[in-house]
């Protein structure tokens, strides 16, 4: 039908040229390609939630001006949205304080980390894909292309994702008003920054329209399923693995507790404190009554832990001054040392077989050791072991369901506790005292 209409216009003798002219005008408008999708959870953001717009990634320095205009446009447009925007100078200041000054690396960082650094509930990553200006005597064009993504830092969910390309041109296709303009307009079009600014502004208007009113999103503009950002998926998986490992460790300790033969009554603890007992520093405020049930600290959580180590550490995060000592230290079964690497400078009172303190010794002649980590994977244990040995600790690994990294052996528990405290202070490594088989 449309084709027939077009043909009829073109076949109308004297109107042929006019028809061609109209067609040219129809197709010569600036082209725009926008693909945008939002998540249903975007609707739940309110003024109580803060969104940070990160600096824009560019592929080369020539795009910086466009990037600044684009970010400024994003701020101006999203200021009208339902959520609270974290001011640009605060975002930039905090990123600078944390030495995160390369937007190209932002996508590799876990959104959770941005959440903690910026105190934001969601972050907006964006990238300038293309700023292309071309000129061919009587024709010139500008093409802009951007990608943008808003991610919830609390869940890693992609709340909004869009790609947009905007093109405009000046030339014969737009029917110049004279010979002079035919020659000069294309030059003016590509050289005048005003045109780039106008296009950028138009682009941001279109791009942000849906985010400002997500409730108006049609089905084809909404994600079918929850989409989790890639970097968040990886790290959430690691957190889950870590938690799984802790659960297994906990189960292993419980199992060992069941097998424990004769324990003195005075060391048995109530069920609510089954796993850990925390020795808090005098400055620690008293925990509320309910919180006595809360698990505080864990022997697996350490700076050296392989899973945690892959998530970039948060700057300025002070670890709580809590030194946990496991009651299971007194419940554990004996493990056989798998490998004793070395004896370093921090070794205290090396125990020779048969030299245990008879006063405190158990009938089974058990010794006390400081456990600093436990891993399902041997390589992780080995990694921590190597680090400790390098620092001069008399560390070794034992294997019984899990690989445990332990330091030194003592006949007296007091000595072990002393070393435990030293490791906690010097290495900031959570640990606890447990028993180990001599030899």
């Amino acid at each position: 039908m449309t084709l027939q209409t077009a043909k009829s216009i073109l076949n109308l003798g004297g109107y042929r040229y006019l028809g061609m002219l109209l067609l040219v005008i129809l197709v010569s408008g600036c082209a725009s390609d926008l693909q945008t999708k939002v998540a249903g959870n975007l609707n739940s953001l309110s003024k109580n939630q803060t969104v940070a717009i990160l600096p824009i990634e560019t592929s080369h320095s020539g795009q910086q001006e466009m990037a600044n205009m684009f970010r400024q446009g994003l701020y101006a447009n999203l200021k009208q949205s339902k959520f609270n925007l974290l001011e640009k100078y605060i975002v930039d200041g905090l990123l600078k304080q944390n030495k995160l000054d390369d937007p190209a690396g932002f996508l590799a960082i876990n959104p959770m980390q941005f959440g903690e650094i910026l105190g934001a509930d969601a972050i907006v990553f964006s990238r300038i894909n293309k700023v292309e200006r071309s000129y061919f005597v009587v024709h010139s064009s500008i093409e802009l292309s951007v990608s943008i993504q808003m991610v919830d830092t609390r869940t890693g969910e992609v709340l909004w994702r869009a790609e947009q390309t905007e093109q405009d041109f000046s030339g014969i296709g737009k029917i110049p008003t004279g010979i002079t303009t035919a020659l000069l307009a294309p030059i003016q079009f590509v050289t005048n920054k005003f045109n780039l600014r106008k296009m950028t502004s138009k682009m941001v208007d279109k791009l942000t329209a849906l985010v400002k009113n997500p409730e108006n999103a049609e089905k084809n503009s909404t994600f079918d399923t929850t989409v989790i950002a890639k970097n968040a998926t990886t790290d959430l998986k690691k957190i889950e693995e870590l938690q799984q490992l802790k659960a297994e460790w906990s189960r292993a300790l419980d199992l060992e507790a069941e097998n424990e033969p004769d324990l003195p009554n005075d060391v048995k603890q109530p069920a609510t404190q089954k796993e850990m007992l925390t020795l808090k520093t005098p400055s620690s405020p008293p925990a509320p009554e309910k919180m006595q049930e809360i698990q505080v600290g864990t022997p697996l959580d350490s700076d050296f832990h392989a899973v945690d180590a892959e998530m970039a550490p948060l700057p300025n995060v002070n670890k709580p001054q809590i030194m946990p000592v496991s009651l299971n230290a007194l419940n554990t079964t004996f493990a056989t040392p798998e490998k004793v690497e070395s004896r370093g400078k921090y070794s205290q009172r090396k125990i020779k077989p048969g030299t245990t303190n008879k006063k405190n010794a158990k009938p089974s002649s058990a010794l006390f050791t400081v456990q600093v980590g436990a891993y399902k994977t041997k390589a992780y244990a080995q990694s921590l072991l190597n680090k400790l040995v390098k620092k001069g600790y008399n560390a070794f690994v034992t294997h019984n369901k899990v690989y445990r990294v332990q330091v030194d052996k003592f006949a007296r528990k007091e000595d072990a506790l002393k070393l435990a405290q030293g490791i906690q202070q010097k290495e900031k490594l959570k640990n606890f005292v447990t028993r180990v088989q001599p030899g």
Partner: protein
Amino acid sequence: MGYPFVSHSRIPLFLKLCIAYFGIVLAGCGTVDLEIHQGHTNSKMQPRSVAILPFTLEDLDPEKVSPHELFRACFFNYFTYLGYVDMPLNTIDQKLNQAGLTDTNKILELSHNELREVLGVDAVIRGRVLSAGNFTGGIHAETSIKAKIDMLDLRTGDILWETEHREMTYSGIFSPTIVQIIQDQMDNVKVHQAYLKAAKIFSLNIMKEIPDPADSWTEEIRLPKITSIETNLKPNLKLNSNDRIYVNMKGDPGLTGYFDIGSWKSNIPLKEIVPGLYTGSYTIKASDDVSSSLIIGTLKNKNGLTGKKFYKDGMAQFNTASTH
């Protein structure tokens, strides 16, 4: 004989046309001539908090689009990009109303001390729209906003910077292409959009000139600090209806504390039981349904800045069979 004459006369004519063309094309999109009276070298003297007072219109408003209000909102949106603490427009209007100040012209006549008392900010921006016009006729389309804007330091009464500028979007006989003329005509008929476009360009141009103190504050920015967060969640622990999630958080004292369960449940209040120790809980309801979510503790200060910390040793996982 004729050849040199032709060449000598045509080139200057062409150049003249070029100059005239560029002169006309570039007219109306010039830079804003902002006069800075006082550039504070001492960063501590720079105004931190700023309120944008209601703009006035010193001309008729035949289109009834209130270009001054539209311009103020647009100006605010772009101004937030700079490193000032911006008081939201509705807060400003509310405070002025509460003080019985409803006449925008009278507000501009108030002394700096009076304004400081009412608004409690370091500086204000005053805007007077001197003229605003929108015209579409024949092949001519034009929308313009002429305004005088300044920043008044309420601590000293000094004007820090001021400008008077006319921003115009124009299309007509000198437009380079017919398509452009048609497009501009069509756009200019939408009066509200046309004013908004002019206001945006005005705002964008002026923002490039206004001193931005952002860099002065970089080292001073500090979010509320959370040193630790603890919960009773454990790996693989499935929560049932009526189970309770307890959250205990340590951090800066005297702030507002709350926690989120992923993005599923937000702003669950935490109570500060002793300075710096915040505690709270959430009881699982039968209708609750969440697969696995991290607990996020938040502390908010009076400026609205938030510090966050994730509890990574366990996730809230509801036993859906039980809760349903």
